[in-house]
């Protein structure tokens, strides 16, 4: 029986287990905010810098294509049709005798602008609608959510295919707006969920009890705390919209014929696939690298903003 057994008492030597003061603030570490921590985490990863470098290279091509090439991407010299690389034309010529490298550089503009524009529009519309629906709730939420469901029922690129087929004017704006019309509910749903979580937090209740007005609570506490998932989806969808633009251009319902776009060049390369497959390779690679760098950035940001993922890594 346990009661018969004598239990030896043990007390740790006091000098070996000094008792610290109760709950003292650790001042050995520098103060850091959530964003600061996230940035500190991102800074340490080489992937972050690869993404940044690639994105800067692409953005430079968008803003100042002349930095990379002096050749006119539209200039056709049928004599050079399908010619290989020559002096000043590192990637040779396409079927119409246009400089492949120049078209590669100038093609960045359409893709990235459509991607950026569509992303900004969806984030703004979706973010605002989602935040208001989640925060104010009630009938407003019900109405907005049902409207969102309707747009959500139409896959965004499919919707864009219909609209772009019948739309008489095709430019970066009409493509971006069309993609955004069908794309905003996704952001709205994410924002709404994040706002619902944030608005039930104790710090929000505490602010109400302090007398802070509803609007100020939304702006000061709820939105900053709900932003992280929206930022992640934003970086990822930027890549998706660039692909969408290329797909529309590939189908011939993207930008007008006079524009330069990776999607159209890929489409055009189809006819010379047997004789010159590298014409397909270059614009595809440019597109893939651009999309990849935004995707990777999204991954890095998500890991940095999610402390759970950080500790698991």
């Amino acid at each position, binding site marked *: 029986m346990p009661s018969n057994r004598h239990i030896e008492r043990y007390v740790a030597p006091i000098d070996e287990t000094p008792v610290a003061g109760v709950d003292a603030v650790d001042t050995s570490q520098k103060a850091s905010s959530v964003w600061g921590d996230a940035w500190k985490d991102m800074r340490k990863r080489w992937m972050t810098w690869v993404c940044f470098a690639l994105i800067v290279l692409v953005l430079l091509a968008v803003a100042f294509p002349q930095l990379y090439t002096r050749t006119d991407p539209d200039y056709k010299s049928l004599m050079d049709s399908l010619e290989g690389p020559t002096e000043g034309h590192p990637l040779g010529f396409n079927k119409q005798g246009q400089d492949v490298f120049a078209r590669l550089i100038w093609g960045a503009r359409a893709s990235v602008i459509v991607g950026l524009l569509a992303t900004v529009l969806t984030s703004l519309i979706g973010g605002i609608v989602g935040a208001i629906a989640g925060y104010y709730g009630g009938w407003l939420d019900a109405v907005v959510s049902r*409207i969102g469901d309707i747009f959500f*029922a139409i*896959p965004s690129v499919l919707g864009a*295919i*219909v609209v772009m087929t*019948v739309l008489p004017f095709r430019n970066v704006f009409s493509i971006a707006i069309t993609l955004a019309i069908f794309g905003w509910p996704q952001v709205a749903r994410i924002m709404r969920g994040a706002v619902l979580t944030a608005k039930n937090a104790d710090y929000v209740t505490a602010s109400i009890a302090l007398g802070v007005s509803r609007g100020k609570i939304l702006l000061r506490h709820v939105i900053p705390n709900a932003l992280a998932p929206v930022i992640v989806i934003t970086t990822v969808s930027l890549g998706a919209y660039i692909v969408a633009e290329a797909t529309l251009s590939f189908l011939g*319902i993207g930008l007008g014929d006079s524009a330069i776009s990776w999607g159209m060049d890929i489409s055009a390369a189809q006819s010379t696939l047997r004789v010159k497959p590298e014409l397909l390779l270059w614009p595809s690679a440019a597109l893939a690298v651009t999309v*990849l760098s935004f995707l990777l950035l999204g991954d890095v940001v998500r890991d940095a903003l999610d402390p759970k993922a950080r500790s698991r890594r």
Partner: protein
Amino acid sequence: MLWYIGRRLLQLIPVFFGATLLIYLMVFAMPGDPIAALFGDRQPSPEIIAQLRAQYNLDKPVIVQYLIWIGGLFRGDFGTTYSGQPVSAVMAQAFPITARLAVLALLFEGVAGIAIGLVAGLRKGKIFDNTALVVSLLLISVPTFVTGFVLQYLFGIKWGIISTTVSGAAPWGELIVPAIVLASVSFANILRLTRASVAENMGADFVRTATAKGLKRGRVIRVHILRNSLIPVVTYLGTDLGALMVGAIVTEGIFNIHGVGGTVYQAVIKGEGPTVVAFVAVMVIIFMLANLLVDLLYAVLDPRIRYAK
């Protein structure tokens, strides 16, 4: 569960009318002449224009036009294609081919995506995981039409294993490569989703408890980790169907498959607006119904949804 199905069906009704109205408005309520817009720069003969005006009731108010159109949908009248064939007839011919393609693609992305994602998630941070991650990222960043061309070039032209186009009957065998093309992006997404979900569930309390109960590792993985990780994957499948539909348009276009996607592809390339609108409307309806199915499947997989009020 019955209550849940009923509620989902009720919710579908306004979405159905809303989404179809939206498509209709975006096409027919645009400023300018919708008929002119439908054909772009290749204007048809005056007779066809007149016939289309009658068909789409363009003299009546937009909402009446829409109601007539939607009434037609319910009777199985989806309109006519540019060449005058009823959409429903073309659909009946094209659908089985696309269905075969979709089954192959879903099989590939589901089985391979989940299996590789599971192994990667279980071995997070190891070589297998890192390789799977890199490959999946590459697949996601390369658009479907590029993957299509690359495989067409490699298998069809360079190695001559397959023919570059699929024959009219589109037998299963010829659809394998196109199905891989169609599934590539979704496969990568499912892989990543499964991996993340498996990694998260591995740290879940109930998994630790399952191990503590004395279950064998294999059973813990199958019954507790994998089973729970399937829930987000199923939800993803719902939204993924939209991407698959666009992918089908592109893939069937590249491999010249005479399915639903191929028909839309040809119509888009040739600027045949009415065909595009009619087919996309049908696709959106299929998308909605498929999502309903996914929702129900979700409820089957996750009892918390079933019993939540």
